[in-house]
C-alpha cells in the first residue's frame, strides 16, 4: 500500500485542540453567541443565590429589630426589593435559556453536518485510491457516533466558559463571607480534577472497547441483512441470531465497565460536594455560636456549593470528553487514510437552508490517442495481485484481458483505474504521465463497469444518469440491451430499483451498470467481466452495438464472443502478463490460451453475427 496508516504517536492532545478550533471558527458568530448565552445561563444561578441570601439577610435584620422592639418596615421593604431582584433574574434566565438552547441546537447540528459532509466528500471526491479500512456498515458508525462525539465536544467549550464564570463568581462571593472555609472547601474540589485526569487513559480504553463492540454488533446486523436471501435460503436464521446474542453479550460487558467507571467518577464528584457541605457545617459550628456566620451566609454557601461541585465535575468530565474526542478523530483519520488532518474540519458550505449548486463539471475532455501502462504492480495484503504489467491501448481498439480465476484480471483493471493502491508503475495518456489515475480516468475520458456493480435505492433513470445529462440515456439503454427489460419493469425508467438494486435481477443490475457507464459518453470503456450476469447472446449484442461507435474498449472476459472480436488479447497467469497478441496468434502458440478457448466451446459465440439481431 502506498498509503500507510497515520502514525498513532502524533500528540493527540494538540490535534484535538487544533482541529476543534477549526470547527469553532466555522460559524464564529453563532459560536460567540452560544458562549455569551450559555455563560449567562450558567452564571446566573450565582446571582439567584445572592438574591435569596439577600432576602434572608434583610429578614434577619428585621428579626434583630423585632428583638430590639423597633419598627420593621424598612427591613421588610428591603427584603421585598431583594425578592423583586430575584424575580427579575429568574425570569430573564428563562428568556436567556430559550435563546441559548436554540442557538446550541443549531450550532451542534450544523457542525455535525459539516464533519459528516467532509468525511463523505473526501471519500467520494479525493484523489488517489479510496478503500474503506472496514466494512461499509462499520464505516457508518464513524459517520454516526464519532461525528456526534466530535461535534458534541463543542459543548465542553460552550458550557465551560459559563462554568468558569460561575466558579469565579461563587468563590469570590464565598470568600467575602469567610476565606478560610472557602479555601478548605475548594481544595478537595481541585483534587477531583486531578483524579479524573489520572483515570483518563482508562476511560479512553473502556470507551474504545465499548465502541468496537458496538461496531461489531451494527456491522453484523448490516451484513446479515445485506445477505438476507443467502441466510434465508440456508435456513440459518437461528445461527445468525445466536451470533448476534454473543456479540451483544460482549458489548454489554464493555458497556457496563464504561458505566461503572463513569459512575465512580460521578460518585467522587458528588461526594466532594457533600464533604464540602459537611466541612462548612463543622467549621461553621463554632462561628455560628459566635454569630459570625448567619442564616443568609448558610443560604449562600449551601446554595452555591452544589453547582460549584458540578462545575468541578464538569471540568473533570471535560478532560475525559476531550480524550474521547481524540479517539473519534483518530478513527476518522483511519477512515480517510491519507487525508491531511484538517480535511475533517475543513470549512465548506453544508447547504442546510438552500440547494447546493451543481457539482463541479467533469474534467476537460482529452481525446484518447493512446493509453500506455508501464511496469504496473499491485498486490493485495495476502500476496496475490499483478506484477510488472506493461501494455498499450490505441484509440478504437478492442482489447480483451483473459486468464483463469485468481490470475489477476480484475486487480489489473482496478489498479489501472487507481481504485486500489499500486506499488509501482506508471500510466500514460497520449504519452503524458497520469499523475492520479483515480481522478484522471473518469468520464469523459474513461468509464468503468465493475464485475459486481452497486446500484442505489433510487429510480433506474437516476441510477443510470448519476447526475449526468440525460442526452445519451436512450442510446445507453439501447446499447446495454436494457430496453427489453424496461417493459417488464412496472414503470420503465422511473421504476425504483430498491436497496442496492434488489428489485432487479442480477442480469438487469449488470445491464443497468453498463448503461450507467455508457451514459457518460467516455472515450475509454473498461468492462470487468460483464458476462457473469449476461447470457452470451446479450453480451454479443453489447459488443456488436459498441462496434458501431468509436469507443476504445478494455474488457475482462473469457467468452468467445469477446475473444473473437478482440484486436488483441492480453493473457494473464498468476498475476503476470505471459502473452499477448491476436487470437489466431495466441491459439497457435499458447497452451493456456488453447485451454481457455477450448473449454468455452459449448457456450462460445460465432463471429460475424447478422446485424438483424441488433435491436
Amino acid at each position, binding site marked *: 500500500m502506498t498509503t500507510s496508516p497515520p502514525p498513532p504517536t502524533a500528540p493527540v492532545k494538540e490535534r484535538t485542540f487544533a482541529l476543534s478550533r477549526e470547527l469553532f471558527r466555522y460559524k464564529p458568530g453563532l459560536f460567540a453567541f452560544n458562549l455569551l448565552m450559555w455563560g449567562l445561563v450558567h452564571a446566573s444561578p450565582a446571582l439567584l443565590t445572592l438574591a435569596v441570601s439577600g432576602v*434572608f439577610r434583610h*429578614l434577619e435584620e428585621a428579626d434583630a429589630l423585632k428583638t430590639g422592639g423597633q419598627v420593621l418596615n424598612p427591613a*421588610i421593604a428591603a427584603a421585598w426589593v431583594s425578592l423583586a431582584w430575584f424575580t427579575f433574574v*429568574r425570569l430573564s434566565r*428563562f428568556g436567556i*435559556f*430559550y435563546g441559548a438552547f436554540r442557538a446550541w441546537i443549531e450550532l451542534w447540528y*450544523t457542525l455535525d453536518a459539516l464533519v459528516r459532509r467532509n468525511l*463523505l466528500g473526501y471519500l*467520494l471526491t479525493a484523489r488517489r485510491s479510496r478503500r474503506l479500512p472496514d466494512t*461499509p456498515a462499520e464505516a*457508518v458508525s464513524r*459517520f454516526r457516533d464519532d461525528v456526534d462525539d466530535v461535534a458534541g465536544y463543542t459543548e465542553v467549550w460552550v458550557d465551560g466558559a459559563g462554568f468558569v464564570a460561575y466558579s469565579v463568581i461563587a468563590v469570590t462571593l464565598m470568600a467575602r463571607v469567610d476565606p478560610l472555609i472557602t479555601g478548605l472547601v475548594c481544595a478537595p474540589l481541585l483534587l477531583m480534577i486531578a483524579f479524573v485526569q489520572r483515570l483518563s487513559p482508562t476511560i479512553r480504553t473502556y470507551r474504545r472497547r465499548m465502541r468496537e463492540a458496538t461496531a461489531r454488533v451494527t456491522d453484523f*446486523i448490516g*451484513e446479515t*441483512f445485506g445477505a*438476507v*436471501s443467502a441466510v434465508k435460503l*440456508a435456513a440459518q436464521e437461528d445461527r*445468525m441470531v445466536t451470533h448476534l*446474542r454473543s456479540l451483544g453479550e460482549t458489548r454489554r460487558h464493555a458497556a457496563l465497565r464504561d458505566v461503572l467507571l463513569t459512575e465512580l467518577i460521578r460518585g467522587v464528584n458528588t461526594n466532594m460536594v457533600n464533604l464540602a*457541605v459537611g466541612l462548612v*457545617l*463543622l467549621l*461553621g*459550628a463554632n462561628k*455560628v*455560636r459566635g454569630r459570625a456566620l448567619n*442564616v443568609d451566609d448558610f*443560604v449562600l454557601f449551601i446554595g452555591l456549593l452544589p453547582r460549584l461541585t458540578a462545575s468541578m465535575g464538569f471540568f473533570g468530565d471535560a478532560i475525559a470528553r476531550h480524550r474521547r474526542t481524540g479517539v473519534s478523530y483518530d478513527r476518522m483519520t483511519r477512515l480517510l487514510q491519507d487525508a491531511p488532518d484538517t480535511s475533517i474540519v475543513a470549512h465548506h458550505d453544508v447547504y*442546510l437552508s438552500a440547494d*447546493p449548486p451543481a*457539482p463541479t463539471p467533469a474534467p476537460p475532455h482529452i481525446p484518447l490517442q493512446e493509453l500506455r501502462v508501464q511496469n504496473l504492480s499491485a498486490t493485495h*495484503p*495476502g500476496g496475490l495481485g499483478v506484477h510488472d504489467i506493461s501494455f498499450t491501448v490505441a484509440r478504437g481498439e478492442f482489447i480483451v484481458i483473459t486468464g*483463469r*480465476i*485468481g490470475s489477476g484480471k*480484475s486487480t489489473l483493471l482496478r489498479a489501472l483505474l487507481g481504485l486500489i493502491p499500486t506499488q509501482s508503475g506508471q500510466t500514460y495518456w497520449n504519452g503524458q504521465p497520469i499523475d492520479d489515475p483515480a481522478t484522471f480516468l*473518469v468520464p469523459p475520458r474513461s468509464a468503468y463497469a*465493475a464485475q*459486481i456493480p*452497486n446500484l442505489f435505492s433510487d429510480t433506474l433513470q437516476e441510477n443510470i444518469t448519476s*447526475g*449526468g445529462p440525460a442526452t445519451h440515456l436512450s442510446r445507453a439503454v439501447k446499447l446495454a440491451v436494457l430496453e*427489453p427489460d424496461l*417493459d417488464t419493469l*412496472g414503470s420503465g425508467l422511473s421504476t425504483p430499483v430498491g436497496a*442496492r438494486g434488489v428489485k432487479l435481477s442480477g*442480469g*438487469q443490475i449488470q445491464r443497468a*451498470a453498463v448503461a450507467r457507464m455508457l451514459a457518460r459518453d467516455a472515450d475509454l470503456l473498461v468492462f470487468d467481466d460483464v458476462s457473469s450476469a*449476461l*447470457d452470451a*447472446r446479450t453480451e*454479443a449484442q453489447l459488443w456488436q452495438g459498441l462496434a458501431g461507435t468509436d469507443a476504445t474498449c478494455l474488457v475482462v472476459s473469457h467468452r468467445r464472443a469477446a475473444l473473437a472480436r478482440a484486436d488483441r488479447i492480453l493473457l494473464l497467469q498468476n498475476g503476470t502478463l505471459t502473452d499477448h497478441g491476436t487470437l489466431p496468434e495466441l491459439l497457435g502458440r499458447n497452451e493456456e490460451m488453447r485451454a481457455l478457448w477450448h*473449454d468455452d466451446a*459449448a457456450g*462460445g459465440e*460465432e463471429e460475424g453475427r447478422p446485424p438483424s439481431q441488433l435491436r
Partner: protein
Amino acid sequence: MLATYLGPLKWQVMALAALLLSGTALNLSLPQLLRQFVDNARLGGAADPGLLTRLAGLYIALAVGVQVMTAGATYVGARVGWTATNRLRADLMDHLLSLDMREHKERTPGEMIERIDGDVTALSNFFSQFAVRVFGAALLLTGALIMFFREDWRVGLGVTAFTLVTLVTINRVRKLGVEPTRLERESSARLFGFIEERLTGLEDIRSLGAGGHHLNRFLGVQREYFTRSVNSWRGRSVVWQLSMLLFAVGYVAVLSAAVGLYAAGSITLGTAFLMYQYMTLVEEPIDQLTQQLQDLQKAGASIGRVSELLALRTTVTGGSAPLSAGPLALDFRDVSFTYAPGDPQARGVLSGVTFHLNAGQTLGLLGRTGSGKTTLTRLISRLYDATAGEITLGGVNITHVPLKELRRRVAVVTQDVQLFQASVRDNLSFFDPTVTDAQVEAALHEVGLGAWLSRLERGVHTPLPTGSLSAGQAQLLAFARVMLRDPSVIILDEPSSRLDPATEALLTAAMTRLLAGRTAIIIAHRLDTVARADRILVLGGGEVLEDGPRADLARDPHSHYAALLRAGTLDGTAAQGVLA
C-alpha cells in the same frame, strides 16, 4: 413489552428498586439533619458543640451513602437495560429475518442497523430505570409536600396546587415532541442508509466521476435530517422551558409567602428558611419526573417503530407436514407468479408453469435472461410464494412443510454470493459452532479451494480477506457451503457464470458427486453444463416452451433443444426464433 423483557430479570429489577428507594429515603433525611443543625446553631452559646460535630459527621456519612446507592442503582439499571435490550435486539433480528423478501426489498441494511440498534438503544433507559425512578421521584415529592402542610396548611395547599398544575401542564406539552421525534428518527435512518449505500458503491461512484453528484444528493438528505432534528429538539425542549418558567413563578410565590407571612408575624425566621429549603425539595423530583417524561417521549417514538416492525407478518408461513427422507420428486401444477400482485398492469413473471421431475433426476433449465428461470427456483425454496397454482415436493405441497425443514432440504447456489466479514469457517457454516473445522476443510478441498486454503495464515480461522477474493473464488465458496449440508434438492442458478472455463472444470467432478442421488435443477447458459441432465425444460416469457427427457428432445429434430444443439450454442442463430 416491559413485562416480556423485564420479567426474567425480576431479581435485578427488585435490587434496583431497593437501591433507588433507600437512596430516596436517605435523600429526604438530609435536609432534616440540616434543619436540626440550624436550629441547634441558632441557640447561640447554648448549643452543644459535640452534637453539632456529630450532626455534621452524620451528614457526611449519609451523603456518601446516598451516592453509593445512586451509583449502585445506575449500575444495576444499566445491567438490566443492556440485558433486556440485547434480548429485544435478538428478537427483532429473529423476527425481521423471518419476514419475506418483499419486505427486505424495501429496506437498506443501513436502515436495518438503525432500526434494530438505534431504536432499541433509545429504549435502554426506559427499560432499566423508568418505572423505579418515577416511583422514587413521586415518593420524594409526596414527602416534601407533607413537610409544607406541617408548616402551614395554606402554603401546603398552594404548593400542592402548583405541583399538580406543573405536572399536568408538562404532561400535556410533552406530546408535542413525539411526532417530531418520530420524524427525526425516520430521517436519521434514511441518512445513514444513504451513507451506507454510497460507501458500499464507492468504487462505482468514483470511477464514474459522480462523487460531486452523490455528495449533493447527500447534502439534500442531510438537510432534511437537520431540519427535522432541530424541530424535534425544539418540540421536546418546550417541556424544560415550561418547567423553568413554572418554577420561576413557584419560587417567587413561596418566597413572597415567606416574606409576607413573616411581615404579618405569622411565622418565624426559621420557618421562612425551611419553606425555601422545602421548595428545593419539590424541584428535584419534578425535574426528575420531567426528565423521565423526556425519555418516555423518545422511548414512545422508538416503541412505536419497534412495534410497527414486530407487527409485520410474513405471508410465507410453514405448515407441519414433514418431508419424507431421501430424494424427492418435484411437481409444478399451473404455477403463476408476479412480483407485484396488487398491480394489474405489471406483467406476470411466470404463468401456468406445469412440469414433473422424478426423485433423483436432474433438470436442465434453459431460457433467455429474464425468462423467469431464477424466479421459478425462488418459488421452490419459498423466498416467494406462487400467486397461483401448487408446488409439491415428494407429493407434499411445499406450503404445508415447516419452512425451516423445506429450506434445509433445498439448497440453492445463487448468482451473487453473499459473504460476511468473518472467518472462513463462519462464512461456510453461518456461525454454526457444531460444524467441525475438518468438515469445513473437507468441503473446501472438494470444491478445489485446497490450494487457496493452504495459503491462508490461520487456515479456516483466517478472516475472509476482503477485496482479494475474486468473484470466481466466492462462487466456489458458495459451493463449499452446499457441500457442508446434506440437501435433498439442489438448485444451481448459473453456477458457472463467474468461472473461467479452466476453473470450471475443477467443479465438474465435485458437482457430479454432489448431484448423485439428489433431485436437482441447473440453470445454465452453456449447453454442456446440462449435457448430463435427465430432463430439459425450456422457458420463454414465463411459460414452458418445451419439457421432456433430454435424450428424447435431442432426437426430435423439431424440438427447441435439438435446434440449440444443432447451432452448437444456446444463443446460436437457429435458437433465435425459439428463445427470443
